[in-house]
């Protein structure tokens, strides 16, 4: 049992338990907080796999923006924040069967992958950050998808501003 395996097992346990608690808890803000614990566990796994940049970006984007947006959405749209709904609806048994089927098929598909039984090859002090930067900016790598993604973000931003301002003018 190397230290890497122990850390991975701890992080995986945190992720799985938090993910189950997201669905099992009755309080919605608690569910959002358990989601934050899950996302933090994923950031730990990124760090273990030597993707330090992705680990930090995971915390900044997922926890610092998306989870906070979830919490605000819950707080601003519930009439009373302590309300607790029923835990499961009538078709819960069907959802359980579907979960087991999907889990079994994922394990079956992954077991035919080469890396299923191997410990990942970690290169030590690889300068992955420079590699990431170069792959985003070289025309032979991923420059075009990078620019297209930024145009997409610009379109989303302009659309959001237009929708918000349009509604304000209608209210006047």
């Amino acid at each position: 049992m190397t230290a890497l395996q122990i850390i991975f097992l701890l992080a995986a346990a945190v992720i799985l338990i938090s993910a189950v608690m997201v669905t099992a808890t009755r309080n919605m803000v608690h569910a959002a907080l358990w989601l934050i614990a899950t996302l933090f566990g994923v950031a730990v796994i990124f760090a273990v796999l030597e993707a330090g940049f992705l680990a930090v970006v995971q915390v900044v984007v997922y926890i610092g923006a998306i989870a906070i947006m979830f919490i605000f959405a819950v707080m601003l749209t519930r009439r009373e924040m302590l309300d607790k709904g029923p835990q499961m609806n009538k078709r819960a048994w069907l959802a359980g069967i579907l979960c087991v089927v999907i889990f079994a098929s994922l394990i079956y598909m992954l077991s035919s992958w080469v890396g299923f039984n191997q410990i990942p090859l970690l290169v030590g002090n690889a300068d992955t950050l420079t590699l990431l930067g170069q792959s985003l900016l070289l025309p032979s790598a991923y420059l075009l998808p990078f620019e297209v993604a930024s145009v997409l973000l610009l379109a989303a931003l302009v659309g959001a501003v237009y929708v918000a301002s349009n509604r304000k003018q209608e209210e006047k």
Partner: protein
Amino acid sequence: MQDPIGNLYNWLMGWLVSWGVDQAISNILLSLVGIVILVTIAMVLDVFLVWIERKVVARFQDRLGPNRIGPWGIFQPFADIIKLLIKEDTTPNGADVFVFNLAPILSLASVLLLWAVLPIAEVVFGVDLNVALLYIVAAGAIGTLSVIMAGWSSNNKFALVGAYRMVANMISYEIPMVVILLIPAILTGSMSMLTISQSQEQYWFVLVVPLAALVFLISAIAELGRSPFDLNEGESEIVSGFHIEYSGMKFGLFYAGELLHAFTFGAFISILFFGGYNGPGVTQMPVLGVFYFFIKAMIGYWIIMWVKYTVPRIRIDHMLYFNWKFLVPFSISILVMTAVMHKSLSGYETPVYVGGMLAANLVLGWITIEILRAQARKQRKMDDPNSRVVAELTH
């Protein structure tokens, strides 16, 4: 003397291995010891900061400050801590107990996380992350989370509104802060704080990008939630916002976390723009860097306190207007100008480079001031009831 931490580590490692402890386990043990020592230094400094804060605010307000307990009142923070510890630890009715207790812990933890990447000297630092600048933003995100948790779990409307305002403040001012954090990364080519400090051995970055230092100071003060951006905790405004239900040592944790956060941002300003641990004589004796680092961090902290105790509070809509309509475009234009000028001047020797960048900064600052003056003139004409322009526009 050249590398005290490294020598101490090797000596302790040899000691532990000779006792028969496994290499990997002794590595982990020594890392834990290092973490405990760093956190202890930060928290002892925090106690000292309470005294500094009270003395400085007193001097700004033309009075003496605490001077009864100990010479110059230096034992006053200990009296404060004892008072906070023996206060009753209340939990409001209907509060969410687990989240209520977790919020001050996360708030202080998010500040202590920042101390891992501060290069106190060239050989004294926690860890040399190559994504340290993003790590700082991530720790700030955890601080934002703790504010929401505090505001929501208090079961109190004032706390909730204060928390909403504070979070709107913090996430808005993260944008100019992140854009300005890109500027030392451009000038150095690396996001690591140690590399940024090392590359300021010849000239400080404040000589090359003074506008960026100014915008970073403003957005840092807003991120901290300190005056003049302290809508969440103004006693006259919102009855101290999300702090309201916290008593005793939990409030102490919030307060200590805020002071330590302010000092840490003073340290960031000094590392990013004022040379960090660099100073005369540091290349021969690297440990002297610790001394220079703390002096510069104290000066940065003093500037933050100076702003706090001089200017009045800013209203929430003015605060958000200032960020989105002025600071964000301004910081992006500083970034573009710095990138272009750095690339075009990078071939020349140092005096030409520094002079050219400084001139470009001054030109951009002058253009910005002229645009603001034109805007202010137009606004004044609109507000003036006797003006001919308004009469023309309304008929």
